[in-house]
């Protein structure tokens, strides 16, 4: 009757009040690791803690290489030095993968995709290096260029404009 419902409700409320995901950061991180880039962006808007977590480069590293088995060795120092995984993802990996995905609309097998992904990542890394070199060392590339968006490197202009998450 009414009383029973009240008890159940109270129990639920108590339970709800006790569990807060922010207290369980490892679980939270595990969950965030499995999201795609847009969802991570959305998650970053939830609260300050989540924002800080999503800016953790390890998350993005996982995003970059989660399809790659085994993950490439020694890449981390290089990538971190050149601007971090988040930048790598937004500027190179995502456009490369999405572009090539469109080209492969004819449905390649999963294992085939793995093999290609390694090459794709290598290509992304090469382009990332070129981007760093141009951006940081050549000073915006070309000279006399009006670069409205500092995050858009000149040599990678042929890739889609990345959304800075």
């Amino acid at each position, binding site marked *: 009757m009414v009383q029973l419902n009240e008890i159940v409700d109270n129990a639920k409320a108590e339970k709800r009040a006790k569990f807060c995901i922010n207290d369980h950061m490892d679980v939270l991180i595990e969950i965030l690791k499995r999201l795609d880039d847009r969802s991570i962006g959305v998650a970053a808007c939830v609260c300050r803690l989540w924002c800080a977590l999503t800016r953790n480069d390890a998350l993005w590293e996982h995003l970059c290489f989660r399809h790659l088995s085994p993950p*490439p*060795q*020694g*890449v981390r*120092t*290089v990538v971190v*030095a*050149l601007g971090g995984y988040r930048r790598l993802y937004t500027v190179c990996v995502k*456009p*490369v993968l999405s*572009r*090539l995905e469109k*080209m492969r609309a004819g449905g390649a097998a999963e294992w085939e995709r793995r093999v*290609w992904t390694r*090459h*794709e990542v*290598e*290509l992304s*890394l*090469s*382009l*990332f*290096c*070129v981007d*760093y*070199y*141009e951006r940081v*060392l*050549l000073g915006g*590339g*070309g*000279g*006399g*260029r009006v670069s409205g968006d500092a995050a*858009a490197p*000149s*040599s990678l*202009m*042929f*890739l*889609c*404009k990345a959304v800075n998450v």
Partner: protein
Amino acid sequence: MWSCEAEDAGVDELFAVLGYKVKSSDMAEVAQKIEQLEEVMGSVQQDGLSQLASETVHYNPSDLSSWLESMISGLNPMPEFDSSSDPFLESSTITTIDNGSSVNSRAQMVADSDFGSDLISIPGKAIYPRTQPPAPPPQPQPQPQQQQQPPAKKPKTLSYLGNSVANLQSERVFARPVESTRSVVLVDSQENGIRLVHTLMACAEAVQQENFKLAEALVKNVGFLAVSQAGAMRKVATYFAEALARRIYRLYPTNPQDPAFTDLLQMHFYETCPYLKFAHFTANQAILEAFAGKNRVHVIDFSMKQGMQWPALLQALALRPGGPPSFRLTGIGPPSNDNTDHLQEVGWKLAKFAETINVEFEYRGFVATSLADLNAAMFDIREGETVAVNSIFELHQLLARPGAIEKVLQVVRELKPEILTVVEQEANHNGNVFLERFTESLHYYSTLFDSLESCGAGNCDALVSDQDKVMSEVYLGRQICNVVACEGVDRIERHETLTQWRVRFGSAGFGPVHLGSNAYKQASMLLALFAGGDGYRVEENNGCLMLGWHTRTLIATSAWKLS
């Protein structure tokens, strides 16, 4: 009297009242021609009608049928020229050659020209017939010609070049003086495109035969026709016209050009289209594979420029299993006009980059006006070093001086490199005959400009800015100028085909190294990323990789070792 009556017999009475003589049997034809004329007049792009009012030969407008014909053909002229300011016109003129035309009664002006006989007419199509009678006749053009129907329409991407060039015949006809000026009124760009090509070819032929007066006239024509085109064709035609004009008027472009500006142009070219990236990535792959397992490596770069090739190689070496080798780079570059040591700056930047990714790096720069000035001792090859020599679009410049390429290849031999990577344009722009060079380069650069057009279009917010495209076009335009206008030592854009280079390398003691499937895959992927991705083709040719646009290969990467 009698002859007069005989002439007027069968003339339509209503028209006769207005003062026009139109045979009743011709009525339908006349009506169609009126429609054509309206259409043609309506689609004139420039203020061409004012030219009709200029000095022309007067024809009797009352013979409506033939007058209409003359009007129509006057508004669709064959390549003619504005001869008002040309003094040489007193002696000869240029026009097209009639081919079995029926209405030949007018004064025909044929000239000492090498125009092809298959120049085509533009039939005005009666799309929207108008009912009003023709306007009070302005002075008609004095140039009635009957021309053939055009052949099947060819696609705009200049692929018809092959056919039309083959059809070009030269016929010699005698000249007749003409009294008046004629001017060009342009309609219907499709046929004008074909005309444009014909005019360019004819001009080149005239230059070949040192008939500079004819060439001068034709070059001006090209200018007119080029304006009526759009996109790639317009630009190509403009550059070729400019180059031809330079050749004719002997206003040769200044050499050597400012290397800083050339570098800047090349940077933009690097960004807009994949050719340079393709070159760098495939060469890097070959060098990477040659350096497998080596701990001390030395790369000698004949084409240092901004050093864009090397960050990717450094990264690949940094990430290879076993860790990076100690890396030494020697860059060769031309002397710079200002006092900055450009080579050293580039070296410093690369050093910083190498430091960022933890690769041991050493750099040395050499300034040399020509690669032939180098000798092997300069490079200070150390014991146990593995050497790679890299040349992107540099070797063809040596062909301008006899003996230079042999000397450089000899120097390379003495360096005992593990691998020599060469990227060159895949075209023969070094023939002895000017006309052949011209034709070849017209094909080549048309294809190249075509591919540039696709780079700008396509993807989202026009990320490849117009500025970049224009700079790339200027970069290519300079090459065009050099191929067409320069001669002797100044002509440095002496491209040769891969087959020709193979012979050269073979006789210099080099054997081919096959570029592996990794290079092929990477190149294919790289091209797939570009906006015009479907147009680009990577091909493997006996171990060499070639990049082309649709059916035409444009650049070739090859790798060599000492045999």
